[in-house]
């Protein structure tokens, strides 16, 4: 496998315009002859489907939800970054680019990140034109807030529901194209596999979740925008349906999987309350603008927070990282929380929580201002925990949140299988080893609204791919394989539910492949995952019908893929003998416990090629060349 990033030559700030100038566009009259399949209708997929339909392509879109409006993008709270410089605080495309590269600990591709920063401003313009009700100041102009990892105020937001409003914007645009019959929408259909003929992606096999029947669909190009894999940890902030199946099945068909070990642990989540816990709820990190994080100085201090005097509190982020303080990046904040809890200074009955305290901000600004900014988050907290956060500090703890890793793509967002494009969280492209807050929405929309319409145009400009009918033997073969796997699940006849087994996998991943990793632990994890996979295939229990809606089968099929994928994640973490971004290897840290990067040996993208289940995949390296930035230390002190 050869990984050619296809980055255009020339100066960084000219690459994208040069790319567009060089491509041979498809004749508008011919566009409807090209069929594009879009899998996933969140920010990236929904935006791509709507925009490609506006351009005249023949689009079919697929979601396992009952409606495209349910995609998990909807849950993003805090905001979306854009280099608008509306605050006149010195922001620029370059600064957003640099912050993102640095935030990713210099493990992303310069050209992709620069393009992201370049189109960021257009996203705000476009979303506003579509009626997204961003927050405004009294003068009527758009409002901004600050986010972790940046010293300028460039985050646009819609209360604590920015993801919802942007997704509903995408959903509106998509709905318009569905009404115009430019997009054929397939709800409640889950992609089960990619079909590859002569080395080219020619379509997909989907499962109708109501009838349990399989269907084949042909596309001149296939776009995966199927989100991230943080649910491999079982407990995460991801929605319950989130899974790795689409990406993982593409990987099994030959698409390289890049940097799976880069998984983000979000510092501000509501702590776990018991074994019944089905997911963890994130509290937007925008809260860290006004909340101060602390734990008692003394280990084992079980006093009521109000009874702990100021001088006996440790505002550890402010102490350790004076210039960024409570706004330090996510990985740094998460590890700092873990460290103070490991020292026995954690709060809550479990000892696995830290305080996020708003009393200073409420005294300074008044409760009304805080309620205006974060009202819905405070309500959410009170609902879940049963404690009023205006009166008592919140308790938070890190939780698995986002996958920076994903399918490898080139500058065109095309995977290593020609004709298969990957967008949004599902690709590995822009966030390196760690994603900054408010950058996921930016990337999803950049990919969907602005990048793919151009790169797919360039791809199709080379000529119309040959149509492969869905009765082609390869389609039939893949359908049979998918059906056999489901039948195999149904025939295990063991004792454990898919959820029970998923919980066990999550426990292994969180313990050995979570916030801090080491060689021994990772080797152990690989063995444990392999054993658990055996257990899965010998002890899985499925009940209910197999020819009508059955959520147990859906869940089992997704967990089966996690059981294989988890191992790749651990291999990647084991191979990367350095600490960078969200990947923290205990063997590689400075004396103060900070991540120690190794640019000499690990300045590359690790792209894995499937070799068979249980076999170590082949590692391919895409060297990261930094022509325009200097690889600095990622210091937030």
């Amino acid at each position: 496998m050869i990984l050619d990033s296809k980055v255009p030559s020339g100066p960084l700030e000219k690459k994208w315009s040069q790319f567009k100038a060089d491509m041979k566009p498809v004749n508008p009259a011919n566009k409807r002859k090209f069929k594009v399949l879009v899998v996933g209708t969140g920010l990236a997929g929904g935006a791509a489907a709507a925009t490609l339909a506006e351009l005249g392509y023949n689009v079919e879109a697929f979601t396992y939800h009952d409606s495209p409006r349910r995609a998990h993008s909807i849950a993003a709270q805090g905001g979306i970054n854009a280099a608008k410089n509306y605050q006149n605080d010195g922001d620029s495309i370059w600064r957003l680019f640099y912050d993102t590269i640095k935030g990713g600990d210099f493990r992303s591709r310069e050209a992709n990140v620069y393009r992201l920063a370049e189109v960021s401003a257009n996203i705000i313009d476009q979303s506003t034109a579509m009626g997204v009700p961003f927050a405004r100041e009294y003068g009527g102009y758009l409002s901004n807030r600050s986010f972790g990892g940046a010293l300028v105020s460039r985050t646009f937001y819609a209360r604590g529901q920015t993801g919802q409003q942007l997704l509903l914007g995408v959903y509106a645009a998509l709905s318009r194209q569905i009404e115009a019959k430019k997009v054929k929408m397939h709800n409640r259909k889950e992609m089960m596999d990619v079909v590859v003929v002569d080395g080219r992606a020619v379509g997909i096999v989907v499962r109708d979740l109501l009838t349990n029947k399989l269907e084949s669909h042909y596309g001149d190009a296939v776009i995966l925008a199927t989100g991230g894999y943080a649910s491999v940890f079982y407990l995460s902030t991801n929605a319950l349906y989130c899974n790795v199946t689409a990406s993982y099945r593409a990987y099994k068909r030959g698409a390289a999987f890049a940097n799976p070990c880069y998984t983000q642990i979000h510092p501000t989540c509501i702590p776990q309350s018991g074994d019944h816990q089905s997911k963890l709820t994130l509290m937007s990190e925008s809260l860290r603008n006004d909340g101060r994080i602390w734990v008692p100085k003394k280990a084992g201090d079980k006093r009521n927070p109000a009874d702990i005097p100021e001088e006996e509190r440790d505002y550890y982020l402010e102490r350790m990282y004076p210039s960024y303080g409570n706004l330090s990046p996510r990985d740094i904040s998460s590890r700092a929380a873990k460290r103070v809890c490991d020292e026995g200074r954690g709060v809550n009955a479990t000892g696995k929580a830290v305080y996020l305290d708003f009393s200073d901000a409420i005294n300074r600004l008044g409760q009304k201002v805080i309620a205006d900014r974060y009202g819905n988050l405070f309500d959410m907290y009170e609902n879940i925990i049963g404690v009023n956060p205006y009166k008592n500090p919140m308790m938070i703890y890190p939780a698995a949140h986002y996958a920076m890793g994903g399918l490898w793509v080139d500058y065109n967002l095309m995977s290593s299988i020609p004709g298969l494009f990957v967008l949004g969280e599902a690709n590995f492209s822009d966030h390196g080893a760690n994603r900054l807050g408010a950058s996921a929405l930016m990337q999803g929309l950049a990919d969907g609204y602005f990048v793919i319409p151009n790169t797919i145009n360039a791809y199709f400009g080379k000529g119309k791919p040959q149509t492969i009918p869905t009765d082609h033997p390869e389609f039939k073969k893949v359908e049979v394989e998918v059906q056999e796997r489901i039948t195999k699940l149904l025939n295990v006849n063991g004792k454990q539910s898919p959820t029970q087994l998923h919980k066990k996998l999550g426990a292994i991943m969180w313990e050995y492949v979570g916030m801090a990793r080491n060689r021994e632990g990772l080797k152990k994890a690989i063995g444990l995952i392999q054993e658990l996979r055996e257990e899965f295939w010998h002890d899985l229990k499925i009940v209910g019908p197999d020819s009508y809606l059955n959520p147990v089968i859906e869940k089992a099929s997704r967990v089966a893929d996690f059981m294989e994928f988890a191992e790749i994640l651990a291999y990647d973490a084991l191979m990367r003998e350095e600490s960078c971004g969200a990947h923290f290897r205990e063997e590689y840290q400075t004396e103060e416990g900070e991540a120690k990067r190794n640019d000499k040996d690990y300045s590359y993208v690790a792209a894995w090629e499937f070799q068979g289940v249980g076999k170590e995949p082949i590692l391919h390296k895409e060297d990261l060349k930094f022509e325009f930035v200097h690889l600095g230390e990622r210091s937030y002190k």
Partner: protein
Amino acid sequence: MRINLHVWRQPNTEAKGHIQLYTLDDVSPDMSFLEMLDVLNEQLIQKGDDPVAFESDCREGICGTCGMVIDGIPHGKQSGATVCQLHMRKFKDGDDIYVEPYRHTVFPVIKDLFVDRSAYDRIIQAGGYVSANVGSAPDANANPIPKGIADLAMDAAQCIGCGACAAACPNGSAMLFVAAKVSHFNLLPQGQPEKATRARAMVKRMEDEGFGGCSNYYECEAACPKNISVRFIAKLNRDYLYAAFKEGV
């Protein structure tokens, strides 16, 4: 605590349903209502029984996937919250709880508590958007919008499309849903060019789908997990009249 759950079981759309009683011991007050159902389902799987089918995804009150009727009220008695945000501490030891799917002819039951809400999608498709192709946008600050207007539009835009309003309405009207979306756009300058056509097209689609009309029961507002105000229905009525006037009918 111990809970007696009376749950609607219906294997498919055509089948007749019935209420089935399940008793759950050891329910923790910290569990969410859906986590309590998860526990029930795990027990059913262990016994080899078909678990209760219900939908949920984000479990934080934003995606609108969850939705069921608890003791006669969509999303249960806690106001301003979805069922996934409802916690067992709101119930007492020994409580009998009745759990049913939304009851609405436009939302047919697929299985147990699982219903088909695709009619809401089709209402949006009729006009719930601003027709602005990608690439055509001016600078976002080119048109300042008074904060009050933007905030009001945001109040309307918070709708999560869960279906509770229509399920709660004695007339089976989806007026609050339609009003929220129409108001969101019609309040904003961006929505003005299509203001009249949007109101008419969306109301017409609502009627064509088989939803009833609004006669001001306001049950929708009480059931709405996002506290969307019925004042938006009044605004929709004004926009609708304006549309009729514009079109001379």
